């Protein structure tokens, strides 16, 4: 059931349009409902070969040896691909926008960092023959200690998951082990607040569960090019990733896609394109690489888990005066897109509310699990769950109706947001009012009369004097903030003890925390408040690597 409230914001809209606003049927609907629409896997080729991968049974292990001799001789096997066959066997997805360091192999070589990591690819005449040959590959492992908890992974001396990031955190701006948000002075505000509430929230991993699993069919064309039927959510993103990993000029790849059986973020990673094209190059034949449902569910990247610790200061009258959010994003073993989701999360803090003092610290943490990726609501769904349950608790704490509490604190046109941009085009209040009316939720006269269009700006547009700090300097783990103290009564998270490794392994010498920087002055606990809002500090623009506008001016340059 769907209806419109055309009376709201009517003066901001031209409703006199021909096609816009009409529920016209999709141009491709008939094809979808009659099963005639062609998805990537509906493209047949003569002599099609099938690719399957050997996956790690261990969460973390050194690879001692790989023996493919039996697999190579197995019936139907046309080619076995190993890490050394991949032209550039180390990549990170966001290198295309110059964000982050290459940290993930297409096929693992010396070490596996999560259970299910691909090590060897087998190409055979049929899927059954490829799967049979997969079982003949002998990989010898030395299992390594594992780390699965984000806060454990951040402790000095923790097991190193991904040697590209030896502290188990993504490095922001070459400077910090997390992304900061600083607006005002939360500590001072906590001291004057009538109530302070600190709670911890845990968002679970989620499987995208698209109807169509990840897959690619790649075939040589006669003009020294390769046609690639792809399920990618970003066609050129996948083309660029494939070209980089295979060291090909981009115009040797002809990607076709655009009609995809669901994605929800699970088809941004180019999980199958590079190997399928490499298989076509090495065999000269069309190659199909499609994940089975079990592979998709167990080993394709899910939405990552997130932990958010929220500490709020609230006054008896319901005004929230300070909000501090510490967020841990579980990236799994490799970065993929989690580093981006963290910045998006920070941009979203403190939710759609105007709060004069906000502090955020968000970490992208590496653990020995399947690498996480984007999913619907990336960077926001988890923190929104946390914020909105926290809002409910705060309303309860101060004895104010939860809808009234939202309207009281809602952002309005003209308000300054914590990332220092003025809000405009806001409509949170109206959404709450409309639903309240719909469900007969009683609102006070004040709440009913509130509007996103008025009451904002003025003092609410000010950027407060802001306390900054150097916590979390890379290489100085002692400056990282201790995990926030939980309010008594908050439910503890279930403790998890990883099972002992089967094989006794002598670990390398314990991880040594990096030595403190020489002549580095000791940091005061908090810098003195700035006398006035600091003007924006634009970063020096870096030289673009490929001519196009890149993220290099924003973040760490790719090394």
């Amino acid at each position, binding site marked *: 059931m*769907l209806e419109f409230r055309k009376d709201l914001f009517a003066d901001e809209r031209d409703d006199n349009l021909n096609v816009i606003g009409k529920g016209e049927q999709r141009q491709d609907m008939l094809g979808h409902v009659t099963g005639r629409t062609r998805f990537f896997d509906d493209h047949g080729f003569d002599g099609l070969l099938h690719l399957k991968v050997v996956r790690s049974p261990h969460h973390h292990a050194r690879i001692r040896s790989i023996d493919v001799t039996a697999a190579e001789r197995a019936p139907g096997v046309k080619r076995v691909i190993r890490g050394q066959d991949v032209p550039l066997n180390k990549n990170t997805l966001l290198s295309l926008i110059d964000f982050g360091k290459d940290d993930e192999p297409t096929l693992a070589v010396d070490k596996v960092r999560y259970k299910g990591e691909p090590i060897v690819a087998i190409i055979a005449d049929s899927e059954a023959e490829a799967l049979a040959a997969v079982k003949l590959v002998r990989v010898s492992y030395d299992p390594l200690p594992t780390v699965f908890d984000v806060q454990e992974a951040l402790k000095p001396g923790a097991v190193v998951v991904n040697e590209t990031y030896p502290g188990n955190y993504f490095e922001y701006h070459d400077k910090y082990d997390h992304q900061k948000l600083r607006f005002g002075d939360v500590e001072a505000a906590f001291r004057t607040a009538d109530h302070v509430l600190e709670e911890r929230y845990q968002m679970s991993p989620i499987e995208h569960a698209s109807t169509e699993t990840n897959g690619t069919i790649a075939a040589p064309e006669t003009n020294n090019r390769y046609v690639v039927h792809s399920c990618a959510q970003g066609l050129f993103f996948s083309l660029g990733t494939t070209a980089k990993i295979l060291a090909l000029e981009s115009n040797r790849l002809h990607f*076709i896609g655009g009609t995809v059986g669901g994605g929800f973020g699970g088809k941004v990673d180019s999980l199958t394109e590079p190997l399928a094209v490499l298989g076509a190059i090495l065999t000269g034949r069309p190659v199909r690489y499609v994940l089975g449902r079990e592979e998709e569910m167990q080993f394709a990247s899910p939405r990552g888990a997130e932990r958010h610790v929220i500490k709020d200061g609230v006054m008896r009258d319901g005004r929230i005066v300070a909000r501090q959010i510490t967020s841990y994003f579980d990236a799994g073993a490799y970065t993929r897109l989690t580093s981006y989701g963290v910045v998006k999360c920070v941009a979203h803090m403190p*939710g759609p509310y105007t709060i004069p003092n906000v502090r955020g610290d968000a970490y992208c943490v590496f653990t020995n699990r399947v690498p996480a990726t984007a999913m619907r609501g990336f960077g926001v769904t988890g923190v929104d769950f946390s914020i909105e349950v926290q809002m409910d608790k705060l309303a309860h704490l101060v004895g104010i109706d939860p809808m009234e509490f939202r309207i009281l604190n809602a952002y309005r046109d003209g308000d300054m947001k914590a990332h220092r941009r003025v809000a405009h085009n806001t409509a949170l209040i109206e959404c709450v009012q409309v639903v309240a009316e719909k469900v007969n939720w009683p609102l006070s006269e004040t709440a009913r009369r509130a509007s996103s269009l008025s009451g904002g700006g003025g003092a609410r547009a000010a950027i407060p004097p802001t306390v900054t700090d150097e916590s979390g300097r890379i290489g100085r783990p002692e400056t990282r903030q201790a995990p926030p103290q939980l309010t008594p009564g908050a439910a503890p998270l279930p403790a998890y003890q990883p099972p002992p490794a089967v094989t006794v392994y002598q670990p390398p010498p314990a991880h040594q925390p990096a030595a403190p920087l020489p002549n580095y002055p000791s940091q005061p606990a908090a810098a003195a408040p700035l006398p006035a809002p600091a003007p924006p500090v634009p970063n020096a623009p870096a030289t673009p690597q490929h001519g196009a506008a890149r993220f290099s001016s924003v973040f760490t340059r790719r090394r």
Partner: protein
Amino acid sequence: MARHQGRGMASINYPIGMNLGGDPSQALVHANPDGKFTVALSAIDLGQGMKQVSRQIAAETLGVPIEDVYVDTADSDTGPHDMGSFASRGTHRVGNAVIVAAKEARGVLLEAAAEELEVNADDLVTDGKGNIHVRGAASKSITVKAASQAAQFKQGKTISGRGIFLIPLSTVNPETGEMSPVTAYAHACLVVDLEVCDETGDVKVNKLTSAYELGRALNPKMVEQQLVGGAWMGMSHALYETPEPYYPNPEHGGRDYNEYLMPGPGDIAPHDITVLERPAPDGPFGAKGPGEMCANPVLPAVANAIFNAIGVRIDTLPITPEKILRALKAQGGARPQARRA
């Protein structure tokens, strides 16, 4: 044993487009000699309706009937560059690129018509039904088809247009997090009515009531599909889904749809949706994008409704019957909170 009724709410906003910008989309529009248009993109239709939204935007901008426009996507040889379908960027970014391309093509179309009609192109309007006429003089007209034929066979003009839309890249301050994340936000509020069984821990969602502010619902039917499906996904995230039920323990992941739990047809709740439209100043016809955000308010609203029903807070997702029963046991039974309306 008792089933306790609960009602909870949540309100949210959602950023439209890739965080920090720097994510261009392009579009090409061209007409065949009969004035039928093709929009070439490399955007991805994941089922969300990218093709149809682009088609409606192109038809509206060109001023032609929707049947006269088809969208061709995605082929890297013919479709110009696009970052992809993620981050709620499709409608906003691609839609704007389509408008730019369609405006250019419309400009040539009107010039061709003006030459045939021997009038000034600035005086011409389209009726959206395949005709071009002088403003205020419907009889002085030419069909889109005739104008296109004249353009291509007589005047030597290409009725085509190129479009790109790019929000310039924002920097991020390492010390303060100052940045320009996005230019538009969608909004929502949602109420969940549910009941919790204190013997089994089972949660039954009875009704969803929501308001979504989306800038402009370009196609209300597709908006409804997104919102209904997204709310289902939110309900599933809140109560059912995870590949790691005892996170951070990585074991016990489902291998198929028998083991990986999701709400079935019998678990789907009626959803009463109201759409608000506050146009985004830089959105295509004001549109923002409902695709991602629609799941988000459901998760906290369900958790808040469970608290309202039985007085326990479950802060770890998903909220399984096991977690509810353990929390009830720790609390010594259900403590229903004040009923709301």
